[in-house]
C-alpha cells in the first residue's frame, strides 16, 4: 500500500485531496460528509466581511455533449453569519481531528480587521489559514480579494499583518488575473507566508444569449465578469503553478504549494503534483458530481503510484519541474516528424486539411483503388518537408494512429541562447540565411 499522507507546512492530512474554498466547503454538513467519503482536508469557504448574494450565480460552458468544461460564478464569500461558521469549524475539527481544516479569510484592508479575524478563527482549533487574495468579483470592487492579490505591496503588507498574530500555518492564495504570478508570490513570501496556493478563478464572461442578448450568468437582465474555473482552466493553472514552483526565490523559502484549477481526476492530481503541488484543491468537479469523485482519485493515484514504484507522494512531488525550460534553451537540432500508421487510419483526412490549410503542406492525399470498385484517398506524409509541428497528430481522432517520431535532423544541437552568443550575426536576415544553409535548415 502506498502512503498518500502529507505534511503541508505542519498541516497534516491523510491525503493531498482538499476541497477548495468554495460552495462545497460552505458548512459543517458538507465538509464532514466530504471527509467521510475520503477527502483529506477542506479549505472552508471564505469567512470575513458581511455580504449579500444575487441570483443567478453560475454560468457554464458545455462542449460537444460534455457538460461543464468551464464554470464561472459571481457568488461572494460566505454569507452565513460569522459566528455560525466559527462554531461549525470547531465542531468539524472536533469530529475529525486527523483531517486538515483550513479557514479561508478575507476582510477589508485594515490591520485591526485582519488581526482580529485571525485571532477569532484560531479559537476554532483549525489547522491553518488561507488568505483569499484572489476573488475576482464583488469583493475586489470593495478593495478585497484580487484587489489585494494584484498589488504586490498590498499582498506583502497584509501577509505581514497576519503573520504577526497567526500561530498556525498561513497559505496565501494567489489570483491568476495578473501578468506575472511570480511577482505576488514573491511578495507573499516576503510577507512571511508559510505556503502558497493557486490559482483562484479567472475573470470571464461566459456567453451571450442570442435571443435575449442577456449575458450568462444573467442577474435580472445584467451580467458582469465572474470567476472562471473548471477543467478548461487547468493548463493556465499548471503554467502558473510551475512558474511559481520553479522560481529560485520561492524555492529558497522552502514552502509548499497547494495546486488549484480544473482538477477532476487522479491524473490531473498527478500532473499538479509532478509540477510542484504538495496538496490539491478541488471545487468545480465536486459541484458537478459530488464528493464521491474522491474515491477514484485515491484509488487511481494509488494504483498509478504502485505502478511507478512510488511509496509516498514525496517520491514524485515536483519531479517534472526540472523539465520546465524556456524557448531560448530548447534544442534547435531536435526534430520530430509525423508517422501515420496506415493500418489504423480511417481516412477522415482531417490531418491532410489541417496540414494543408493551416500548417506546412507536407501531407499528400493518395488514391487507392478499393476491391469494391471505388477509390479512397488516404494521407501520406512527406517526411523531409514535415516541420514536426504536431498539428496532424493533434487532430487525428484515432488513438496511436499518427505519432510524432524523433528523427535525425542533421542539424547542430544548439540552443537559441547559445547561438546568439556564439553567432550574434544571425540576427540579420542574410546571415541567418547563410547559417540555415550551412546547418541543413530548410524552410518551405
Amino acid at each position, binding site marked *: 500500500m502506498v502512503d498518500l499522507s502529507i505534511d503541508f507546512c505542519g498541516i497534516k492530512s491523510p491525503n493531498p485531496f482538499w476541497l477548495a474554498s468554495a460552495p462545497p466547503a460552505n458548512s459543517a454538513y458538507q465538509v464532514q460528509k466530504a471527509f467521510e467519503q475520503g477527502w483529506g482536508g477542506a479549505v472552508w469557504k471564505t469567512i470575513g466581511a458581511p455580504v449579500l448574494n444575487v441570483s443567478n450565480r453560475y454560468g457554464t460552458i458545455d462542449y460537444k455533449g*460534455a457538460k461543464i468544461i468551464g464554470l464561472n460564478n459571481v457568488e461572494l464569500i460566505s454569507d452565513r453569519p460569522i459566528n455560525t461558521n466559527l462554531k461549525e469549524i470547531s465542531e468539524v475539527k472536533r469530529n475529525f481531528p486527523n483531517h486538515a481544516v483550513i479557514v479561508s479569510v478575507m476582510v477589508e484592508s485594515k490591520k485591526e480587521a485582519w488581526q482580529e479575524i485571525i485571532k477569532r478563527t484560531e479559537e476554532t482549533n483549525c489547522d491553518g489559514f488561507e488568505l483569499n487574495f484572489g476573488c475576482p468579483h464583488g469583493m475586489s470592487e470593495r478593495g478585497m480579494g484580487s484587489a489585494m492579490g494584484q498589488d504586490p505591496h498590498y499582498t506583502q503588507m497584509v501577509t505581514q499583518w497576519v503573520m504577526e498574530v497567526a500561530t498556525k500555518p498561513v497559505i496565501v492564495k494567489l489570483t491568476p488575473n495578473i501578468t506575472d504570478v511570480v511577482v505576488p508570490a514573491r511578495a507573499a513570501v516576503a510577507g512571511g507566508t508559510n505556503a502558497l496556493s493557486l490559482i483562484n478563478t479567472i475573470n470571464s464572461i461566459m456567453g451571450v444569449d442570442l435571443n435575449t442578448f442577456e449575458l450568462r450568468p444573467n442577474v435580472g437582465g445584467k451580467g458582469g465578469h465572474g470567476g472562471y474555473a473548471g477543467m478548461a482552466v487547468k493548463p493556465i493553472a499548471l503554467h502558473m503553478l510551475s512558474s511559481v514552483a520553479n522560481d529560485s526565490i520561492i524555492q529558497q523559502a522552502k514552502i509548499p504549494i497547494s495546486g488549484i484549477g480544473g482538477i477532476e*481526476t*487522479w*491524473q490531473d492530481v498527478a500532473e499538479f503534483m509532478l509540477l510542484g503541488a504538495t496538496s490539491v484543491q478541488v471545487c468545480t468537479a465536486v459541484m458537478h*458530481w*459530488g464528493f*464521491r*469523485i474522491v*474515491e*477514484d482519485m485515491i*484509488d*487511481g493515484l494509488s*494504483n*498509478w503510484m504502485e505502478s511507478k514504484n512510488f511509496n509516498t507522494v514525496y517520491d514524485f512531488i515536483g519531479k517534472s519541474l526540472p523539465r520546465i525550460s524556456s524557448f531560448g534553451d530548447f534544442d534547435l537540432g531536435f526534430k520530430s516528424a509525423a508517422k501515420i500508421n*496506415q*493500418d*489504423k*487510419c*480511417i*481516412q477522415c483526412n482531417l490531418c491532410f486539411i489541417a496540414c494543408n490549410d493551416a500548417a506546412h503542406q507536407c501531407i499528400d492525399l493518395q488514391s*487507392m483503388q478499393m476491391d469494391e470498385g471505388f477509390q*479512397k484517398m*488516404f494521407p501520406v506524409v512527406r517526411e523531409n518537408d514535415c516541420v514536426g509541428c504536431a498539428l496532424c497528430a493533434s487532430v487525428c481522432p*484515432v*488513438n496511436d494512429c499518427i505519432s510524432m517520431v524523433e528523427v535525425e535532423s542533421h542539424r547542430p544541437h544548439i540552443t537559441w541562447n547559445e547561438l546568439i552568443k556564439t553567432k550574434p550575426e544571425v540576427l540579420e536576415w542574410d546571415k541567418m540565411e547563410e547559417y540555415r544553409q550551412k546547418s541543413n535548415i530548410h524552410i518551405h
Partner: protein
Amino acid sequence: MVEHVKSNRNKIWELSLEDRFKEVYPPLSDKEAQTEAMRCLYCYDAPCIKACPTDIDIPTFIRKIATANVKGSAKTILQSNLLGGSCARVCPTQELCEGACVMGSEHKPIMIGRLQRYACDYSASHNIQHFKPLPNNGLKVAIVGTGPAGLSCAGELAKLGFNVTCFEKNNLAGGLSTYGIVVFREPVEVSLAEVKQIEALGVKIETNKALGKDFTLNQLIEKYDAVFLGIGLANVPQLNIPNDKVVIDGLEFIAATKIKDLNSLKIGKRICIVGAGNTAIDCATIAKRLGAPRVTILYRRSEAEMPCYYFEYEFALSEGVGFMFLTQPIGINLDNNGHIESINCVRMDLQNESINGRRISKPVPDSEFNLPCDMLITAIGQNKHQDILDNLNQIGIDIESGYIMVDKHTNQTKHPKIYAGGDCIRIKGEASTVAAVQDGKIAAQAIYENLVSAKVKKVEVKK
C-alpha cells in the same frame, strides 16, 4: 488500412470453424471503452445499480474506465461480484442494468455489459489479485458444486478468512459457465480463469468428486462447520415418445462444443430442437455455426410464450434458425440402422387458459405430419437431483417441487449447518448466473454472521 466492418453474421460458411466459435461480440478497444465510459452520466443513486442483482457500483466502475484506472474499475466490479467476467458476458443486460439506464430514454443506454467485460478482462489478463483474505479464522466450510453460486460463496468466505473446500462432480470447475454457456457467448477460458482467481483466494477445489457417490452429506456435516449446496439441476428430461433413446440432451450438446475439439463433432443436416428457452436457442445457434444447413426449433406454443430472452430469439433468427411454432413431436422414425430419419409432429392450438402467464396449447385433431430430421436435440428444462433431494428431506430440509427451500435473507435451510443457492433453490424467478452469484454472497455473509462475531467488516449483500 482499416476495413470498414461488414456483418458476416449471415455468411458464417465463409468463416473457419474456430472463427465461428469466437465470441460474437469482440472486446472493446481502449478507445471504444473510454468513449463509451465518458458517455455515462455518473448518475447519483443510479437505477443501473438497483437493477443489478449483485449491486455492482456501475457508475463508479465506468468512471474509473474513463479515468484510465482500469485496475480500480475491475476491483469495484469484483468487490460486488467475483464472477464479473462471466456476468458481463451472459447477463441479460437489456433486462437488468442497461434496461434501467437513464440514457435509454434520452439517447441509448450505456453498454454496461461490454464495459464490465473490458475491465474484468484487463484484470484477468494482468492476473491482478485485488483482495487479501482476512486472517484464517479456523472454521471450515464445504461447498458442493462449483457453478456460479458455489464459486461466489467459496470466494466470499475465503475473503473472510474461512477454510473452504469445494467438491465438483465434473472434471472441470465452473458449472454451467464452463459447460453450459455457448462458446461464442463465453469461452471456457473465461470461466476457468475465474476459477483460478477463486483458488488464488485460498479455496481448495476437488474435482471428480460427486455427492452421494464419492462422499455423503453426513460426512460433510460431521467434518465441516457449514455446508453450501450449489448443486444446480440435472439433465434434460426425456420426451417420453417412441424411440426417444436417440434424442440428444441439449446440455450435453452444448458441453461438447465447450470442451471438445470442434472438428471432432458430428452433426446432422436437418436438425430439430425441441423447446424455446435460452438453452434451445443456444443449441440451435451452435448447430448452425457447426455447419448444419437446416436447423429448426419446434415449440408447442407461439412466439409470445417463448421463455427465451427476446434478444436471443432475434440472434437465432439472424443466424438463420427456423422456428415452427405450435408444433409438438409425438414420435420418432428410425431407419434400418437405427438412425433417426424423421419425426412425427402434431399441430397445436393455444387455449384461453394459462399457466404462469403462458397460454397452454392442445393438439389439433388429425393434424399429424412428418418432418424429415436426422438429429433431434431436446432443451425442455432440467430434471432434479432426486436422490440428493430425498437425502436432504430425510434430515429435515424442506423440498418443494424439486427445489431446496431456504430462508431468503440467509439462504439457510432448516438444517442449521446447511445453506443452498443457485438454480437448485430457484423455485420462483429466472435462473441466471448473476442471481446465483448473489445467492452465494448472501449465504457467505450468513455463514459469517452465524459463525463469527459480527465485529469484522461485512461483505456487501443486498437483502
